[in-house]
């Protein structure tokens, strides 16, 4: 009943135990207290099995047009989005509405299990789309085990018609969570920089999209260089750097109002902004006379607090999910390395010791790991380590992979990959925490600086 999939992947020998070899299971990373020795990489054969899930088009009790959308058409489209989400997770082999028969409204609560078993499906998703009395839509989402003939998920969503993709993502999240034991992550959004034009004069625009690339929208028009966006935890704002008026400054963009304001008034360059987990504070870097340090300021303004004061470059930073610590990068030792500190700047400690340079640390929303870019041997690779610097694992292998950002459940990492040469371009990618299931994200143009937000409120 399961589809076997042999995957060749590169792992660190030290991490080759059950943790790295079981992508699907809910696991806890091995405890690491001291700096575990970094060992040579080996290539391992890992066999993973993907659960087959049938996702027929959702039924409708009556084909009705709601805000220009047909409930019949939506039933097919929602199933398509669910199947694509499950496929992208790497854990499941969905049979989407293009490859299995449609269902009747009556089957939604009474599946024909024999039919789905005949298709070798371990599970089957059923659902319906119905016009609600208030001009919206009601979407039902059911998951069944075909062998045990039991119901595993039953959920319903009342939504505005324009939000139908969210209903699909929430259904996919319910299925994923029930089957994998992990927290959901599909119903989330990504802010990033859309790139176009020649390498020497790239046009870089702030853009946002759903986690699967849907509902794509450009925010800025490209007249000013835009870089390093981050969604606020409530998704209402984006903090980013704009080269507006030929200065380097951090702005907070209000998505609904379409307006932006400076995070802090300064004649100095401000950059590398990050939100605190509660959205009340912003971390940023500021260069004064060539020396860059890290500051923290209320998102509503006020007096910034300077957190670092070494003569070297202290830059970037990311809050731990409990808001008590910050991980950042500094070249105070002579090369870029990763450090942690308390949010008042005390107790600054280096945690990266693996050789080469380390940059762009991002704390996992689960708190257990820090993702980073490691530079060395002519390559930029994305990896993870524990907050104390142990258990380092590299997840990607390419000429230039940079700037990891975490899925809301801390299981998937997005980053951008740059190709070399005069025609070199940047594109968005994602990879599982285990180093498998590497995929490119579809975007209308080239892309860089992805930033994955939390589960939508």
């Amino acid at each position, binding site marked *: 009943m399961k589809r076997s999939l042999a995957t060749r992947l590169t792992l660190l020998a030290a991490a080759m135990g059950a943790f790295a070899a079981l992508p699907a299971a809910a696991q806890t990373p091995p405890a690491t207290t001291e700096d575990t020795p970094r060992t040579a990489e080996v290539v391992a054969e890992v066999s993973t099995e993907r659960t087959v899930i049938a996702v027929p088009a959702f039924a409708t009790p009556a084909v009705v047009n709601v805000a220009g959308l047909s409930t019949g058409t939506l039933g097919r489209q929602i199933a398509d989005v669910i199947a694509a989400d499950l496929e992208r997770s790497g854990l499941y082999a969905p049979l989407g509405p293009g490859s299995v028969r449609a269902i009747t409204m009556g089957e939604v609560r009474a599946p024909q299990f024999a039919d789905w078993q005949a298709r070798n499906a371990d599970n089957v998703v059923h659902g319906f789309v119905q016009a609600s009395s208030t001009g919206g839509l009601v979407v039902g989402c059911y998951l069944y085990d075909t062998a045990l003939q039991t119901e595993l998920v039953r959920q319903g969503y009342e939504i505005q018609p324009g939000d139908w993709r969210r209903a699909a993502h929430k259904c996919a999240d319910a299925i994923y969570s029930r089957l994998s034991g992990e927290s959901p992550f599909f119903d989330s959004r990504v802010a990033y920089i859309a790139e176009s034009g020649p390498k020497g004069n790239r046009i870089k625009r702030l853009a946002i999209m759903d986690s699967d690339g849907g509902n794509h929208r450009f925010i800025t028009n490209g007249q000013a260089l835009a870089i390093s966006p981050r969604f606020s935890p409530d998704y209402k704002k984006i903090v980013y750097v704009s080269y507006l008026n030929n200065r*380097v400054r951090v702005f907070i963009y209000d998505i609904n109002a379409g307006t932006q304001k400076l995070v802090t008034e300064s004649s100095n360059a401000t950059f590398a902004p990050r939100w605190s987990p509660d959205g009340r504070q912003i971390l940023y870097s500021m260069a004064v006379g060539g020396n860059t340090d890290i500051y923290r300021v209320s998102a509503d303004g006020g007096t910034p607090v300077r957190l670092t004061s070494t003569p070297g470059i202290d830059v970037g930073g990311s809050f731990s999910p409990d808001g008590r610590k910050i991980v950042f990068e500094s070249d105070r030792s002579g*090369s870029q390395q990763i450090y942690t500190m308390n949010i008042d700047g005390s107790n600054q400690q280096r945690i990266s010791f693996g050789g080469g340079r380390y940059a762009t640390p991002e704390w996992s929303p689960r708190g257990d790991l820090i993702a980073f870019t490691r530079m060395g041997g002519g390559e930029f690779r994305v990896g993870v380590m524990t907050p104390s610097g142990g258990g380092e694992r590299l997840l990607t292998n390419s000429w230039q992979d940079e700037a990891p950002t975490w899925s809301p459940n801390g299981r998937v990492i997005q980053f951008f990959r740059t190709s070399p040469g*005069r025609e*070199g371009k940047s594109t968005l990618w994602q990879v599982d925490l285990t180093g498998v299931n590497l995929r490119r994200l579809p975007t209308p143009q080239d892309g860089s600086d992805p930033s994955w937000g939390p589960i939508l409120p």
Partner: protein
Amino acid sequence: MTIRKTTAMIAAITMLTVGACAKKAPDTLPPAPDGSGTDTGAGTGTGVVPGSQEDFLASVGAMGDRIFFDLDQYNVDAQDQATLQSQAQWLARNPAVRVTLEGHADERGTRDYNIALGERRANAAKNYLASIGVDPSRIDVISYGKERPAALGSTEEAWAQNRRAVTVVIGR
């Protein structure tokens, strides 16, 4: 025609020689910026507005608007000092002119760090100009990090050209 060609070749050889002696100047020089083409010839400076970017480049030379840095470095060495001294002389003759010092890094660094590195480089150039008498209030600084490479390849030569601080006239 023949004479002109010979002159051009001598000029080219001279530039190559200078390049070869330099400690860290790129092996291959990028094309001259727009408006400073070599076809202006030995004319009488027709149409060059005093105090303009064009005037500046005519004075300091096509590549005299920039200094180059070693990997991850931001120190101003003897060759850079000569370049900046030439810029300072022009700035002294045009006291009303303001300039922007653009700091840049090569593509082989992470984005935020490269902005910080470009800040270091542009400030190092600004500080040297100030030390030889240029009023620092005439100099704005901006870092482009790796966002605006001058050479587009992914080679050591291209990266050497991109690790730079460029002085740009912004008017008066």
